[in-house]
């Protein structure tokens, strides 16, 4: 380890999104959660064409239109104006969640407050205070063939987001199989965090100290290398 802190070396949100995008196969149907995960769409590797689904009833939507050219009936789940790509389709909410719940999405990528080593996810409520809001997260975690999480490795206060057991209210039980963090790529297998990739600049010991449950290693841990931007 160098004398730097993990804050100096960690990936930007865009870089985490870039890494997650590399795992999306050509032709995949993908739902990206509101916020951080939305950026994944920008980093599709050349030659691959994923089709993006939004819960409010569009398949194959694209980037935001130029300002002033929005059609406010053409929005995504984050209520941002979008455009259509050729081959798009509209459908109502029951059909949209039939796609989700029925296992037709290949990947859902969501944000997280906490992820537990058993695959439990907490991303909808920080507890009793304030107004609770759930949206489509609880449907997505039990529907997509693969549910991944995209997150900072620790909270702003430096507390682990990868934990033994979620302390916050659950979104879903045993649903997450891969976590892309600002420091590492970690699979969840048989109730354990399996470290697959980490930033070359961080040592295993420091990474473990920033993680709330044991990081298991099975074979080699690859270097997590992403472009600068």
């Amino acid at each position, binding site marked *: 380890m160098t004398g730097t802190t993990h804050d100096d070396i960690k990936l930007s949100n865009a870089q985490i999104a870039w890494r997650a995008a590399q795992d999306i196969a050509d032709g995949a149907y993908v739902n990206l959660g509101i916020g951080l995960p939305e950026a994944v769409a920008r980093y599709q590797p050349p030659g691959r064409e994923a089709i993006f689904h939004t819960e409010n009833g569009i398949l194959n939507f694209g980037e935001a239109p130029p300002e002033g050219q929005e059609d406010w009936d053409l*929005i995504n789940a984050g209520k941002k104006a979008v455009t259509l790509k050729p081959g798009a389709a*509209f459908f*109502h909410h029951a059909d949209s969640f039939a796609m989700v*719940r029925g296992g037709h999405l290949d990947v859902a990528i969501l944000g997280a407050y906490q992820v537990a080593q058993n695959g439990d996810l907490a991303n909808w409520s920080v507890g009793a205070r304030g*107004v*609770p809001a759930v949206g489509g997260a*609880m*449907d997505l975690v039990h529907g997509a063939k693969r549910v991944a999480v995209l997150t900072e490795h620790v909270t702003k206060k430096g507390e682990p987001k990868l934990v033994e057991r979620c302390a916050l209210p659950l979104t879903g039980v045993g649903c997450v199989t891969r976590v892309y963090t600002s420091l590492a790529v970690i699979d969840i297998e048989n109730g354990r965090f399996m470290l697959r990739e980490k930033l070359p600049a961080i040592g295993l010991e420091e990474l473990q100290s920033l993680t709330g449950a044991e990081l298991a290693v099975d074979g080699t841990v690859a270097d997590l290398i992403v472009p600068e931007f």
Partner: protein
Amino acid sequence: MDKTIESVAEAVAGIGDGAVVMIGGFGGSGAPIELMHALIDRHRQTGSPKGLTVVNNNAGNGHVGLAALIEAGMVAKLVCSFPRSADPRVFTEKYLAGEIELELVPQGTLAERIRAGGAGIPAFYTPTSYGTQLAQGKPVAEFEGRPYVQERWLKADFALIKAHVADRHGNLTYNKAARNFNPLMCMAARETIVQAAQVVPAGGIDPEHVVTPGIFVNRVVEVPEPQQEELLNRAGATYP
């Protein structure tokens, strides 16, 4: 057969105190602003309807549409999935003050419960919410080794719907993603009231392109160039 009526005021005249009202839209997309504002007008003039239970994906944004309905004190309970928005203060303040009840439902479960209400399915099982707070008190059953939560249908006395084109039989199309909850709510209400940007004669919509068949619709009122919540909010509008 002609389901058209002349005015939004007439369209909402039958909605009484304590009614369960489904309101279409996802945020501002597909939200029937003019019907909601007509309901607010009636409340200002007559003190009614009040004590409404409203079913909508959200809880309003700014001071128009659903937010204005809540601000007017007409809503006793909200059934929704996501009571947040760019400006959710109207709902948030009433909620934190204990002046409005909230039933929080996962978005896909909300959609399916409404469809079930329309389709005569009193209950169904979903994996959604299993093991979470939102499943508390609900029956759980295993099918093929996997646990599921039993959810109940959701029906309404009235549905307020925003369509794009309607014919006189009540056949409807929608504009883009404004479809969202609207076709489901048409099915699940005892009386479905539609504002459409254009009303055409029977036969004016290709039978292949009908999204909501007229059997699910009771009244249609033409509202050309309907208002869009997002634009109203960007202009800082309030209603009334």
